[in-house]
């Protein structure tokens, strides 16, 4: 890689492997993931439940729960190694450089603290602001995320707000220290559809306003179509496809991506027709098949898929679209 290229990388993850300790020994849940986020870029991370999306992001911040640990791999943020930096430095990165928005706004706010205080906390402890300054900034942040009457709202407790409001507060907390990167872990899963669209619009607007990079984790391909620049599709802890968003929708390569796209209901479908789905479930950690992890569910599976693990190979001339599939490779060679 040229140095110019590495410099525009904000987040660069190489070969990240995460294991869960079980009674039968360590089970791999994230298997050598490579991914990167450029400055100002919005990356969508897509996959079914349990394929390691959240664990990947939590492991970057060293927030993994007990018994789950990073076995190998490197993660660099803005040129610094996240896995080896001291706890002190890491705390600065967590609060200042990387903002995190969690999945469930109902349980991710401290129930006994007023939301104004929760917003002010990182500003006071990490930015050294006075209480008064932090309070003014909290009001400003709530206004930024579209909460009306923010002067009064900072006095509210989380249980006095609706789910959508709480997620706005979560986003405001994530933005409090003006991060370079906002990681949103399925921020709309717990919300109803109209609120989902509002939150997506909100983040889109904020990204442009604040010039930050965003990683949006989701299992909903349709939701992020208008939001992200590039999509990484995860399956069973591996990257199976990586492409610019338009390219991915127009020309999905990996059978898993195709399956995901096919399972989005369309208006043109016949009324009352069955929804498409991908048969089977992702492999449990510790019971990963030999070869390609998707092979047992794959309509195109060949013999080689059950014995060898496909590598992520570029399939477009520019190299920006990559997929890990023997069937795709074979089709390209035949063409």
């Amino acid at each position, binding site marked *: 890689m040229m140095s110019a290229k590495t410099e525009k990388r904000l987040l660069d993850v190489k070969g990240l492997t995460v294991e869960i300790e079980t009674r039968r020994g360590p089970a791999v849940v994230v298997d050598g993931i490579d991914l990167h986020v450029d400055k100002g870029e919005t990356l969508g991370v897509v996959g079914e439940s349990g394929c390691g999306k959240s664990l990947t992001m939590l492991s970057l911040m060293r927030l993994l*729960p007990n018994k789950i640990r990073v076995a190998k791999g490197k993660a660099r943020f803005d040129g610094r190694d996240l896995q080896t930096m001291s706890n002190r430095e890491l705390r*600065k990165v967590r609060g200042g450089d990387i903002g995190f928005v969690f999945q469930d706004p109902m349980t991710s706010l401290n*129930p006994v603290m007023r939301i104004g205080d929760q917003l002010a906390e990182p500003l006071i402890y*990490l930015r050294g602001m006075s209480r008064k300054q932090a309070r003014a900034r909290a009001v400003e942040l709530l206004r930024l995320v*579209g909460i009306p009457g923010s002067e009064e709202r900072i006095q509210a407790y989380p249980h006095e707000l609706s789910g959508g409001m709480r997620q706005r507060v979560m986003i405001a907390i994530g933005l409090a220290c003006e991060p370079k990167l906002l990681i949103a872990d399925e921020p709309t899963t717990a919300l109803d559809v109209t609120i989902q669209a509002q939150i997506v619009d*909100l983040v889109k607007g904020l990204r442009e306003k604040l010039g930050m990079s965003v990683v949006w984790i989701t299992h909903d391909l349709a939701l992020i179509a208008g939001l992200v620049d590039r999509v990484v599709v995860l399956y069973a802890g591996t990257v199976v496809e990586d492409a610019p968003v338009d390219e991915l929708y127009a020309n999905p390569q990996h059978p898993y991506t195709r399956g995901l796209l096919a399972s989005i209901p369309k208006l043109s479908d016949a009324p009352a027709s069955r929804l498409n789905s991908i048969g089977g479930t992702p492999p449990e950690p510790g019971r990963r098949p030999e070869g390609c992890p998707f092979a047992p569910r794959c309509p195109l599976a060949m013999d080689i898929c059950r014995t060898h693990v496909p590598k992520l190979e570029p399939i477009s001339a520019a190299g920006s679209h990559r997929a890990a599939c023997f069937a795709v490779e074979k089709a390209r060679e035949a063409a």
Partner: protein
Amino acid sequence: MSVVQAQPAPLAEEAPVSLWRDAWYRLKRNRLAIFGLCVIALLAFVALFGPYLTPYDFLGQDLEARNQAPSLAHLFGTDDLGRDVFSRVVYGTRTAFLVAVVVTAIALVLGTVLGAVAGFFGNPFDGVIMWLTDVTMSVPNLLLVVVINASLKTPIAQWMEARYLETLNPFYRETVWIDFLLVFGSMALISWPPYARLVRAQVLSIRSRPYITAAQALGLSNRIILMRYVIPNALGPLIVAVSAGLGTAMVLESAFSFLGVGVNPPTPSWGNMISDGLRVWQHYPHLLAAPAAVLGLASVAFSFLGDGLNDALNPRGSK
């Protein structure tokens, strides 16, 4: 962009209801709890302003008027030295509250800190602290207190006397506070383990809640997370435990004083008054009845309040 246009969901127009106001509302409707609260408030008032309420000195002897039955002059009668029993019961209330509050405060701080550290930081702290808790709990309370009092009181008193003879400093002559110090120390020593266990259990369950991970993701330090996120969320059950604990401490102090290992005469304590009264109760029942009734009332009041707080702070637990 659509930042400003985004239409948030409408919010209920109710006045903000905090957790505590909500709990107070539920507590108010619980008659027994309010009865307990009133009794405790009255006893606390008596304890605070005792010296201004009593017509006689609690030590003042009137040998002309010994063993009198209750009358207008002596509300609860007088004892075998002609001391006014009402004044002594009032002073006993002071003793009981002093011991209960100090002991509970020490036990609470000790138990909360140890329990929180054990629960939050896990092993090896957890192992050591829980081992300490189990060991303390496995020793019979009474035995421990007797051992501490029997083995420490005399040496300290002798040392004090020696110091007094050496220096003639009046500070060393006053020995009543040694009683209190030993009672505080030994009772706190046996009272902290339940708080530690409770707090640890609370912290263990709170530690895995998403808002703790969220706080960590904000870069807050462990100390701040513990003080501002974990402990406040563990407070509800702790308040209930404290209310019950205060009552238990009062009964315990009386029990120890009754057995002669607590507060010693002539300092009045409900316990040593009951002990004195028990010897002559067939002839002068009021000497037993007065302190015993007040002790019973206080104990019941704290139980009622504790129960009521439990219901008020755990709305899911009540019907």
